[in-house]
């Protein structure tokens, strides 16, 4: 008898354990399903900035996972001061259209109530609830139970996630908890979309401001040049003794005026070049030219500068360079800038210019025996207003714009510019250029 009773107890206990195990398994399976779905929702939120797509994904998953029949997401419009229907699931077109025609102001219906309480609100049976609480159209569509979860932003309620069921009855706490997670995801999606919209707007404003800035600089540089013409012109006339013989002391002072005036002019020209390029207003003037003549022209322009510093200036150009087509004046400007820099920064030794052509592309190199440029500075020097060492700006002069301009001109020709250098062993600047340039390439 005792053993029978014991057996019965064991059997009952086994059944209880088995049931518990089955419940746990079901619960676990549901948890896994929930996690999987939340993962999908998270992915949707992060992978697209299209608010509508994200919200539709969220409402669909929320309905499926909560075992309800239909759902919707409303977003509060500050401008209209009402909740606007943004995404739906499981609702027919007529019902959607009817809801869209409704005005749901702050504090109105269960949505307004949930927002005011900053907490979920549920209606177990719409037939036992005051009419104002649930929209007529929802009742007419046959829904009996409604759960509203507010979308809580950091400062205010941004909207509501609603699920509806045709069966009346309270929603279990697990469903409420689950929908609160979905609501949090919706808030992120809505805020992401808003931020993205703001960023887009700001980018547009910035692009316009940048255009205005470039245009302003271009106009400004032009206006600055007219008085420079008068200053440099008169100075030269006086130095040429047009107004009578100029005393030696005055001549010395005027030569300083002239040299500073020319430096100022160089700055103005560089700023104009750069602003024109940035404003997309610098057009290449494409002509047939000879690279050999470009190199020789640069050589004669800087020969005296090199001689004054007792630097050897070497040129190496093969006799069989192909005929070239490009903006000769701008290409000369680039080479002149590189050679001018090499001479400026080299105190003893030599500066060598070499040109070569292979497969229709020129490679120009300017090698010096100067101090060299540290690896971490090599990319920076091609940016505006950067010299390898800011102290050298004071010592060596220059605008810090020359290489930035050179880079853009080379890129407009579809070429590349770079430097190869080890500190203490000099530097070699290279640039490549297609021999035949038919039209300007876009500048990054």
């Amino acid at each position: 008898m005792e053993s029978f009773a014991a057996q019965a107890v064991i059997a009952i206990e086994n059944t209880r354990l088995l049931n518990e195990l089955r419940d746990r398994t079901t619960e676990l399976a549901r948890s896994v399903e929930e996690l999987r779905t939340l993962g999908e929702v998270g992915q949707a939120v992060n992978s697209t900035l299209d608010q509508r797509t994200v919200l539709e994904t969220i409402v669909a998953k929320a309905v499926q996972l909560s075992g309800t029949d239909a759902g919707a997401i409303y977003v509060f419009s500050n401008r209209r001061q009402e909740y606007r229907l943004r995404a739906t699931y499981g609702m027919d077109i007529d019902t959607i259209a009817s809801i869209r025609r409704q005005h749901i102001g702050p504090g109105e219906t269960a949505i307004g109530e949930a927002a005011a309480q900053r907490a979920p609100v549920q209606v177990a049976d719409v037939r036992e609830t005051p009419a104002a609480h649930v929209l007529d159209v929802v009742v007419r569509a046959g829904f009996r139970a409604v759960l509203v979860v507010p979308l809580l932003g950091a400062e205010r309620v941004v909207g509501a996630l609603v699920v509806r069921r045709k069966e009346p009855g309270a929603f279990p706490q697990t469903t409420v908890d689950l929908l609160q997670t979905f609501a949090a995801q919706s808030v992120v999606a809505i805020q992401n979309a808003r931020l993205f919209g703001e960023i887009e707007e700001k980018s547009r404003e910035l692009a316009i401001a940048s255009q205005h800035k470039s245009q302003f600089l271009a106009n400004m540089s032009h206006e600055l040049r007219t008085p420079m013409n008068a200053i440099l012109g008169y100075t030269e006339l006086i130095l040429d003794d047009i107004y009578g013989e100029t005393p030696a002391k005055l001549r010395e002072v005027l030569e300083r005026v002239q040299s500073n005036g020319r430096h100022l002019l160089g700055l103005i020209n560089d700023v104009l070049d750069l602003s024109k390029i940035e404003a997309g207003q610098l057009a290449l003037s494409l002509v047939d030219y000879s690279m050999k003549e470009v190199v020789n022209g640069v050589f004669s322009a800087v020969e005296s500068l090199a001689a004054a510093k007792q630097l050897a200036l070497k040129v190496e150009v093969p006799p069989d360079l192909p005929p070239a087509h490009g903006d000769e004046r701008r290409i000369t400007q680039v080479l002149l800038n590189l050679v001018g820099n090499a001479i400026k920064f080299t105190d003893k030794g030599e500066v060598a210019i070499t040109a070569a052509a292979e497969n229709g592309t020129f490679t120009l190199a300017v090698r010096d025996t100067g101090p060299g440029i540290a690896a971490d500075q090599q990319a920076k020097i091609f940016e505006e207003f950067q010299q390898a060492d800011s102290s050298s700006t004071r010592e060596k002069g220059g605008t810090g714009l020359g290489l930035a301009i050179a880079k853009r001109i080379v890129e407009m020709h579809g070429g590349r510019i770079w430097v190869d250098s080890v500190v203490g062993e000099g530097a070699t600047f290279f640039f490549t250029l297609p021999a035949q340039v038919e039209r300007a390439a876009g500048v990054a």
Partner: protein
Amino acid sequence: MKRILVVEDHEDNLQILRDLLKSAGYQMLEAHDGAAAVATAVAEKPDLILMDIQLPVMDGYEATRRIKADPALKAIPIIVVTSYALSGDEGKAKAAGSDAYVTKPYSPRQLLAKVREFLPQ
């Protein structure tokens, strides 16, 4: 004495050219806008024209085109003077029919050398 028509609207730059051209032995005529330049060219038939580009009423390109379109004037050399060479400006100056191109700010000495290329003494 050779006569040079200077088309320029900036007083200081005009004064520089008056001083420069006088000292070099030229007579200088003046026009302060593009339309006046065309009228003066017709009336005076100068030996050479220095043409600024940014001018009131009518710009230097248009004035150059009109003068070069006139059979009685087309032989007059026109040196276009503009603010700093932007690529493309030279092409526009040539297309308008000018004979040479000088960028501002110019060196008076170099400008004079350019003038002398067209007016051998």
